[in-house]
């Protein structure tokens, strides 16, 4: 079974339901300062492992970059 999610505006197909921590690992985002929104709600870092990604979830992953 596959599920379809949106990560930073791009559609992504996953083979199984993962935790948010697994997804971030897959994306190579295990280090560095990021913040994650799941369907418009912030997920605290402490809940990355316990949060399961479901079909049609929309995820935003952000970082700090240069700006004025």
């Amino acid at each position: 079974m596959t599920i379809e999610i949106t990560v930073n505006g791009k559609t992504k197909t996953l083979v199984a339901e993962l935790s948010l921590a697994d997804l971030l690992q897959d994306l190579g985002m295990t280090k560095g300062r990021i913040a994650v929104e799941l369907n418009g709600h912030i997920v605290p870092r402490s809940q990355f492992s316990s949060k399961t990604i479901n079909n049609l979830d929309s995820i935003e992953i952000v970082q700090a970059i240069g700006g004025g």
Partner: protein
Amino acid sequence: MSTTQDRPLLIAGVEYRSRLIIGSGKYKDFEENLAALEASAAEMITVAIRRVNLGQDKDEPSLLDIISPEKYTILPNTAGCYTAEDAVRTCRMARELLDGHKLVKLEVLGDQKTLYPNVTETLAAAETLVAEGFDVMVYTSDDPLVARRLEEIGCVAVMPLGAPIGSGLGIRNPYNIRMILENAQVPIIVDAGVGTASDASIAMELGCHGVLMNTAIAEARNPVLMASAMRKAVEAGREAYLAGRMPRRLYASASSPVDGTFF
């Protein structure tokens, strides 16, 4: 020996020796940004919050690896937001990203050509953010009544523009800035419009508590040298303000005494 008796700039309970806040946009690379930051002696630096590029090299350093949140006060901004909702969302993300850090720069823009603030959305976002416990430094127009309203809402600093963002036109309406200063109980920081060192001095001579700038340093031919110039300009303007300037006179006033002339 310094003869000034200046107090530090106090923002949300934190004391800053520097009255200059710089940005981190438009630099060639992080190293140039850091060198400019050091030359400016600024203790606070703005950052933007944007999507992580999914294809990016995970070992590539990020801005906050180079400019340390342990050493500098990071001021996440809501640049690029055109609604209160987007600005509030950005601030919540920033707070999570920076481990509960409450200080934010609120800016809600009105249109792309002028980048003028959308004041009604700014007021709405400020109310929400203050209620959620954020310390809000707010970018706004140079309207004294709006500035006062933002202070009443509970913003920790009000930051009127000197001229449009990135325009380098200087302080276009010094009289409005003076009116804002007269009413203010919180720091007033000119944000946007500074083009060169004298503009920063003018802002400080008016009595502003600080100056925030990005493009004036980042787009200079030599950003690090300009950062150093801005440090001096802000200090010079502050000292001139504290010293109290002489009155303007239409006619001359001789500096040498008339008494004792032998001719």
